[in-house]
């Protein structure tokens, strides 16, 4: 007789799944006018999910026949994801209304995508990994083309879908290779098998791992799987871009870490080479590609490629400190990007959305506080002390140096130097260029988010360093402790 699996570790996910169904029903019955209601209910259910997460069982819990794992590593990442998703929903409402695409499916899709991310992060088997990943991706494909009557948006959605399908293919092919050579898809068993193997690991497993890594690298838009990013960021509605830039990145990179450190922990020598290459290439392409950009969304796309590169530097160290660094980095990355996108979402001239860097000209004269906040974000993204971005870079570069990855660190420093150029160009536009046409007043919600994020980036982060750092440290330790 089959016993019911222990549902307690998966309670937050189960709650969110039910909540999204309920939200969908509410939307369907109340019609298109219900965007605001559904949105706030979505945020509320995210908050409840987060609360359940914090109430969850202590330590590591495995359930669903080993397919699902709940540990403090996952909890840390899930909290970040929930925060990012909530803020994305909050910022979207006004934007969608102004763009006349105020449909209730939007928050529901975000809720489903978030559910997929939570499932991904908790995956303990290649199969559950794929299920979570696809749930997330399918929701994202849809919202990328949410402005379905605008060519650019549909193009973005389609590109993302086609390339995403390709990457899923790579991932599945890799998974099947791993299964074929190792005889299991469970992370725990894979770890034991690979640890027990004599001599060099079999080619099949290594190649399978490379394919899985390629599939995941697509999700975090690491070079050379980054090509979709600028086009999708530019084409998708800005509120979607804001969501894309943060939550899925956090989810994918945590999953990436879990897969590489967990089941493939004993192949560290092999995957470190892949990660180092991806990190270096991402940093360079992120820096170089952004220089030519005039559209601020494309600029942020390259910026996110570069930042993923920095985060991967921490991962490539392959140590507890490295993983801790990546988690800290992602937390700071979240704050910076939410803030910047809140400003980009507020960029309107007489009601019309604009997204060129030149449109920010003279912002310091028309909206001094907004310009100042943007300047803080740019300094932080560029990694100038004492802004938070600097500490994030510090947290990932230090383990890399300790691991002896000097060439990678040097590439990182050079790329940071180059990236300063385009971050500073935004500041230059705001402070030294003339006003072409003043921007509209931002909505109060956006104002709050910008102010909050800016304050977090500097100076609050400095004073609340220890909760984040210790949380990240505990999460990283939990991951390594499970091996």
């Amino acid at each position, binding site marked *: 007789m089959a016993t019911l699996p222990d549902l307690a570790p998966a309670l937050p996910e189960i709650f969110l799944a039910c909540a999204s169904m309920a939200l969908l029903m509410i939307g369907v019955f109340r019609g298109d006018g219900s965007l605001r209601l559904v949105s706030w209910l979505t945020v509320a259910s995210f908050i409840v999910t987060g609360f359940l997460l914090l109430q969850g069982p202590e330590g590591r819990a495995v359930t669903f026949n080993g397919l699902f794992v709940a540990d403090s590593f996952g909890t840390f990442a899930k909290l970040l994801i929930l925060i990012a998703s909530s803020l994305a929903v909050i910022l979207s409402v006004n934007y969608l209304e102004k763009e006349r695409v105020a449909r209730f499916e939007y928050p529901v899709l975000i809720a489903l995508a978030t559910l997929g991310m939570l499932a991904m992060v908790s995956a303990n088997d290649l199969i559950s990994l794929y299920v979570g990943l696809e749930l997330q991706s399918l929701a994202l494909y849809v919202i990328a083309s949410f402005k379905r009557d605008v060519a650019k948006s549909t193009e973005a959605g389609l590109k993302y879908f086609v390339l995403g399908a390709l990457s899923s293919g790579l991932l599945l092919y890799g998974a099947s290779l791993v299964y074929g050579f190792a005889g299991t898809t469970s992370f725990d068993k894979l770890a034991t098998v690979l640890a027990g193997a004599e001599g060099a690991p079999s080619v099949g497993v290594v190649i399978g791992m490379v394919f899985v890594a390629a599939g995941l690298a697509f999700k975090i838009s690491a070079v050379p799987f980054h*090509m979709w990013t600028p086009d999708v960021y530019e084409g998708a509605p800005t509120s979607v871009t804001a969501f894309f830039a943060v939550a899925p990145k956090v989810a994918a990179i945590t999953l990436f870490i879990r897969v590489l450190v967990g089941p493939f922990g004993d192949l560290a020598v092999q995957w470190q080479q892949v990660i180092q290459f991806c990190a270096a290439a991402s940093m360079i392409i992120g820096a170089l590609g952004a*220089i030519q950009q005039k559209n601020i969304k494309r600029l942020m796309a390259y910026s996110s490629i570069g930042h993923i590169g920095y985060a991967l530097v921490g991962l490539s160290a392959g140590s507890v400190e490295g993983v801790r660094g990546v988690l800290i980095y992602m937390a700071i990355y979240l704050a910076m990007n939410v803030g910047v996108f809140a400003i980009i979402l507020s960029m309107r001239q007489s009601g019309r959305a604009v997204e060129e860097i030149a449109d920010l000209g003279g912002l310091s004269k028309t909206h001094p506080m907004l310009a100042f906040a943007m300047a803080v974000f740019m300094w932080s993204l560029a990694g100038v002390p004492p802004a938070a971005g600097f500490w994030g870079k510090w947290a990932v570069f230090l383990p890399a140096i300790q691991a002896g990855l000097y060439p990678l660190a040097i590439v990182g420093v050079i790329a940071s130097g180059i990236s300063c150029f385009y971050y500073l160009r935004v500041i230059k536009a705001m402070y030294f260029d003339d006003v072409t046409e003043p921007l509209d007043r931002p909505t109060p919600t956006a104002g709050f988010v910008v102010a909050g994020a800016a304050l977090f980036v500097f100076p609050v982060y400095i004073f609340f360093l220890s909760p984040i750092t210790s949380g990240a440290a505990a999460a990283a330790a939990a991951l390594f402790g499970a091996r």
Partner: protein
Amino acid sequence: MEIAAIFLPLAGAFIAGFFGRLIGDRGAQIVTCAGVLIAAVLSVILFIKVGFGGPEAARTVELFTWIDSGTFEVSWSLRIDTLTAVMLVVVNVVSSMVHVYSVGYMSHDPHRARFMAYLSLFTFMMLMLVTADNLLQMFFGWEGVGVASYLLINFWYEKKSANDASMKAFLVNRVGDFGFALGIMAIYMIFGTVEFDGIFAQAASKADATFNFLGWEVHALTCACLLLFIGAMGKSAQLGLHTWLPDAMEGPTPVSALIHAATMVTAGVFMLARMSPVFEYAPTALEVVTYLGAATAFVAATIGLTQFDIKRVIAYSTMSQLGYMFFAIGVGAYPAAIFHLMTHAFFKALLFLGAGSVIHAMSDEQDMRNMGGIWKLIPGTYTMMWIGNLALAGIPFFAGFYSKDMILEVAYAKHSAAGSFAFWMGIAAAFMTAFYSWRLLIMTFHGKPRASEKVMAHVHESPAVMLVPLVVLSIGALFAGFVAYPWFVGHDMNAFWAGSIVMLTGEHGSIIEAAHHVPGWVPYAPLVAGVSGIVLAYVFYMFSPGLPGAFVNTFKALHAFVFRKYMFDELYDALFVRPAMKLGFGLWKGVDIGVIDGLGPDGAAAVTRRLSLASSRVQSGYVYHYAFVMVIGVVALTGWFILAR
């Protein structure tokens, strides 16, 4: 009291410099003049205490430790002995007179507060220099007066000639200062300290020390002393490093009087006298000093014969007199050098301020060819200039007579090749000194007026605020030599100096004593030379005005050579300035812009831009391109693993 005497000028400079706008020009003048005048009175009191209080009156006031690093220890302290006390009086008295004089002279200048601040700053730096207890503090003062001098030469900064002159002064001094700095290092290497007491105590024991330089055995003290002398050459405008002094006359005349005649340029003489216990053990260095000093005295005097700018004539005369002081030191007669330094400070400051009074009267005209016939119009200034020139020419009972005669006598008494060279050069220079002094007097004050009527109508005697300092200085020029003779170089010499100057004694006692026993004709030689110079000047410029022209025509080439100042400027220009400019230009255009910028910032930026363009071009927008890149990426990564195995 010592502290007040030294820091009052600094306080004045500080107040006038930073709060000049607040207290106004008048306030700045009062503050600085009061500071320096009080300092002058205090230093006279100090001088009496220390000079006549016996050896125990000398003291060192330690202010605080400056550097304490390992065995290297330097503190800020004020060393007050007779030598310092003499310098304190000279500096503070002349400086206070110049301060007062400047109130009148600069009355039309819009930046009076700044001027007074600079003057006071200079005075403070000079006082730091003379009260230094160690070489490092002396170097501080040394550089400080250099800066003040730079600021004051360039006081009229809108004049290009003033800019050039100040830069030249600074750069030429840099050469000397480099020598000085090396000298300090050499001293530290030899003695392990830069404190004077420590150095002097060990000087005798290091007399035979040598050190190895690039496999070349060098007598340590000679080397150190020569390096120090290079420093002195720069500051004191000795032949070779003198080119800045005449150009420095671009500054306001009070500056020329204070810095470029009375005080700063004598810093080199002071430094050598201060280091006398070391120099006494470096006879070779002293010989070099003698030759160079004598040559300077002669060369500068010849140039002085030919110049027409009233200030430049006096400037070359200053250089020539400094030459006297140096060869006095060279023959070991440090007290004679300091004696001449003191008298010279008074009469040369008097001459400069008198010249300033003339220039003031002539509506800023400096060329003597455009003067003449004004002696009745400005009788006060005329009298002062007479006194100054009489003192300079060494006419009996004026200050210069005692000191210059003493120097020439010691040079003769040295009985060495260098001494004789110096003696005869000195006699020739004395002759020329008298000649150009009276040439100046006659051209400026006598004959027919050569200035325009407008200028002549405007000629007026200077106000009292300018004349009173002249009178005070003229008292010095009249009596300083006569009164001070017994103490400086006479019977009471040893008690007076009380060990602040060291002279090794030969079989006949010190060189000064030997000078009292020279043949009977020697003391009269300079007098004869001086008087004949004056007579000849009268013949040339008053009784037979055609003679100078005829003379110049006869010796055209020689005159041109001397008139062009021995081509020193042209030589340096060709030898150093042009190559340095060429090198600098080459390094700038070729190395900096071409290589460093090209490979560095500009090159990196260009490469970045090109790479960035390339990376954007890859971003074509076609899905199949993107997919292709992804697949290639996977293939490359797997290929790498398979091949790397």
